[in-house]
């Protein structure tokens, strides 16, 4: 199995979710993160003091899929999350050694 992690712009989450759903991916997990990268942050002002905030809000999604689905998932994410502007984010892929569905105890790809 493969674990695919994507860091995307927050408002792309729904599109990515829908794209993966169409692909037959049964589940995914998402959470809010702060990203630091090429996309510039911003300046904040509080009573005359200026602060530079380098981090930009992003959403990270994680989806574990069977090996043969991995490339399709990567491509689907890239397509759904792309706006063409700096800060669109990244997709990273890792090996996943095991999976269990807690409810049933099923293991491996069946657990997905």
């Amino acid at each position, binding site marked *: 199995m493969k674990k695919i992690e994507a860091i995307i712009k927050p*408002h792309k989450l*729904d599109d990515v979710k829908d794209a993966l759903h169409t692909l037959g991916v049964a589940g995914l997990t998402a959470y809010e993160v702060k990203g630091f990268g090429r996309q510039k942050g*911003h*300046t*904040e*002002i*509080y009573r005359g003091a200026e602060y530079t*905030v380098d981090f930009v809000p992003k959403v990270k999604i994680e989806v574990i899929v069977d090996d043969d689905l991995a490339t399709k998932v990567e491509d689907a994410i890239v397509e759904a999350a792309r706006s063409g502007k700096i800060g669109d984010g990244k997709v990273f892929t890792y090996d996943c050694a095991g999976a269990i569905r807690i409810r049933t105890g099923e293991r491996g790809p069946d657990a997905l």
Partner: protein
Amino acid sequence: MAAINVGDTAFMLVAAALVLFMTPGLALFYAGMVRSKNVLSTTMHSFVSMGLTSVLWALAGYTLAFGSAEGPFGAIVGGLSKLGLSGVVSGVSGVEGHLIPESVFAMYQGMFAIITVGLITGAIAERMKFKSYLIFAGAWVLLVYSPLAHWVWGGGWLGLSGVGALDFAGGTVVHIASAAAALAAAIVLGKRKDYGKPELVPHNLPMTLLGAGILWFGWFGFNAGSELAADGVAGSAFMVTHLAAACGMIGWLAAEWIGHGKPTSLGAASGAVAGLVGITPAAGFVDVLPGMLIGLIAGVVCYYGVRIKTKLGFDDALDVIGVHGVGGTTGALLTGVFASTAVNAAGADGLLAGNPAQMLPQIVGVVVTLVFSFVVSFGILKAIDATVGLRVDEETEERGLDIAEHAEAAYVF
């Protein structure tokens, strides 16, 4: 200074403070409904009106609205003798026996101007440039609000000394006028980028509910205070105000429960506000049961009113038209139905008290306010759009106006 009435003055000082307090309440009410990246921007819309509108009111608005109604233009606009609140510090207002310091009257009325501007901003949330908003707000106070207040309350052509439209506390001047401006703004500004997307849900409903609570509290100053005296009419205005808010809440919740199967807290708050809006023009003129009926009807009608925008396809982000336009119109018309001189001898009888003729000035009041405010607002907005520009750029809208326009983040938990 002529002998002021101490009790009335005590009441009106507090009433003015209460109406001022409505504006931070409104800020919370609105800000809870936007996304967390636009909280401060939305709050600022109301807050800055406490600064800007107050200053303009003192400099010119008050005299345009409540300056002398004598002279050739007296029916249209107040005389200029009170520019800069000149002489107000030692003047008195009101009728013999119920005189109050003019300073109190001028401020009390100024608080109405502040919140009326604030109300409009529900339509411009999440996409208007702050600078352009300031220009619009300033122009609107002087070109729309002040003349309208003069027409209805300042001895001008539309109110009791003219056409005879009854408007106890601002159903036309405040609610319909702000809603018409909101409509113009929603049209000229266009929809938010994410309009219709699920992410457009309220970010902090407890904030909205607190705002509604403050509004309800302050509305007693708004409606009962509009009697300008602590007398029986103030008491009856207080009573129907409270009960209309209650009935508005019940009406909206019932309609929602039937329509969607669930009663929401935002529905409770919206219904209460709808009831308050509905009763505003009627407050000092109607008895208990008509007052409750007005609230109930306003609650139900506004529940359907907020759907107009989806139908008509404009993005009135926080439902100024659906609540204040629809509710204000409902209230203004029902005032013509239910008004009774048995409640307030200084008012007029309405349809049910045997005076169907009262419906006419009520309709005139609604239509004139709607058209006047819409047309002038539209003009102002178009002029700003053509020069400074009205709308933030796409990236600002995406990132949120708090950071882009105010260089601040609302929350850092």
